[in-house]
């Protein structure tokens, strides 16, 4: 007996709409058009199977027309199908086989001649429910494999892109250093020769500041582009607690000035990690500075620093009670040149540099954020056992 309430039937229009939604979603996720079409084709295929499958859950048999896969036929005791279903789905009864023919791509009634029916019957392949389940499972595997493959290829494309970007930025940045040194010194020379009261003095002072800004951007670009090529031969044991305390000290003026409270939760014995002290400090400084920036406009200003040791790894949590980010922003924060800060306040390289540094240390960096509530960054770094034993 078919229970209408349990049948989840998609019309062709529904399928097309779902497919389009899926395509948009996949494009948003960063898959290119060809990849999206490939995925959504498989998903539509699965949906189609479910469609058929769900419709036949309570029927004994299912028949599929192999020659025309979009035409399918369901069999049941004809008396058990309510007339509104027959009307709605334009099921065409075939009295001889006690079946209904269904043409999902046609909403118009189709008149079948005895000849056509005969051909149809010859082409029909009878499938049992278990066969259908198996088919759906196979499709699922195919989809999973494809997704895996796409994931791999998009990671590959991403790392290729980053490498190309690294080479390009390194080249450009190196070339810029000499003219930058020229410009900086030419401006400073003019400054030296200009009276403080002269209107031009301030303009020159601005030019100097802006040039220094350019120099800083170039230096960031160089750090960013050099990271991936660095090897770990000069890793040394690094004490993260000392490092965090140092960063807090560097920022103490800002913390006092902006009335930010610091909540620390650091265990007594934290093993050292192997790494580049300066680079790890850059990451911590960057993340804490971001946290402070995020709390500029919020009432509650609390910086949370947690350190945990778990399974030979040190976990550092840097959280704030700042403005937080929406999902769309979180997705982009590790992309180079992405920034939410006003022009001139950030190069958009900070977090992508952090990510490269943490990756170089065989660690992970994760971000959780809730809009208007705060952001949490989680660093996970491996402990070098031998060095930790000797130092603690």
């Amino acid at each position, binding site marked *: 007996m078919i229970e209408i309430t349990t049948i989840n039937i998609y019309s062709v229009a529904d399928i097309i709409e779902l497919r389009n939604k899926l395509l948009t979603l996949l494009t948003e996720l960063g898959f290119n058009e060809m990849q999206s079409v490939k995925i959504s084709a498989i998903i539509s295929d699965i949906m189609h199977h479910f469609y058929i499958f769900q419709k036949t859950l309570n029927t004994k048999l299912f028949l599929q027309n192999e020659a025309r896969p979009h035409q399918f036929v369901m069999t049941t005791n004809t008396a058990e199908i309510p007339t509104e279903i027959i009307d709605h789905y334009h099921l065409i009864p075939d009295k001889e086989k006690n079946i209904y023919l269904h043409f999902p791509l046609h909403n118009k009634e189709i008149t079948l001649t005895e000849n056509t029916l005969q051909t149809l019957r010859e082409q029909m392949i009878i499938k049992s429910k278990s066969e259908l389940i198996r088919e759906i499972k196979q499709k699922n595997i195919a989809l999973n494999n494809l997704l895996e493959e796409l994931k791999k290829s998009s990671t590959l494309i991403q790392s290729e892109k980053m490498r190309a970007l690294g080479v390009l930025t390194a080249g450009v*940045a*190196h070339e810029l*250093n*000499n*003219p*930058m*040194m*020229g*410009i*900086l*010194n*030419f401006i*400073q*020379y003019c400054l*030296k020769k200009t009276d403080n009261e002269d209107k031009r003095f301030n303009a020159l002072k601005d030019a100097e500041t802006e040039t*220094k800004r350019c*120099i800083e951007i170039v230096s960031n670009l*160089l750090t960013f582009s*050099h990271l991936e*090529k660095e090897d770990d031969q000069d890793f040394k044991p690094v004490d993260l607690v000392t490092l965090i305390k140092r960063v807090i000290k560097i920022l103490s003026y800002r913390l006092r000035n902006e009335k930010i409270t610091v909540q620390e939760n650091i265990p007594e014995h934290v093993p050292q990690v192997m790494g580049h002290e300066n680079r790890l400090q850059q990451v911590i400084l960057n993340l804490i500075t971001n946290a402070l920036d995020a709390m500029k406009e919020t009432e509650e200003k609390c910086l949370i620093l947690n350190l945990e040791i778990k399974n030979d790894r040190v976990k550092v949590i840097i959280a704030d009670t700042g403005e937080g980010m929406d999902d769309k922003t979180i997705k982009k924060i590790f992309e180079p040149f992405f920034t939410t800060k006003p022009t001139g306040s950030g190069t958009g390289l900070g977090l992508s540099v952090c990510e490269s540094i943490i990756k170089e240390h065989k660690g992970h960096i994760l971000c959780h954020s809730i809009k208007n509530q705060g952001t949490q960054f989680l660093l996970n770094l491996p402990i070098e056992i031998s060095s930790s034993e000797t130092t603690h």
Partner: protein
Amino acid sequence: MAEDILVIDDDPAVRKAFLLALEDSKYQVDAAESGESGISLLTKKDYGMIFLDLKMPGMNGAETLRALRKINRNIPVYIVTAFHKEFLEDLQSLRQEGIKFELLRKPLGGDEILMIANSVLNKPVAY
């Protein structure tokens, strides 16, 4: 004690930067556009210190330094460079050979240049 400064850099903007930064100082600055002409200047005159570029056509900074040290073992040499990964090995082998040099990061501002010159030339160099 010689108080003249030798700048070796293939980029005219950088050479001019050093000249302007040190213009009003008591130091006389000579600038060479290549390692080769830098070496030839050093054979003719005593300098108090040298600012040396790394990446140059012809003799690069490391090669120039090696040649400079054959003429003068003790003159303070400041290699001025942006971080050049490709020269890291050269610099390391210079250190291993016992060739002395200091590293400065490009770009340098006028105050920094003057400060470095003062700190090197205003006190006896202890080697």
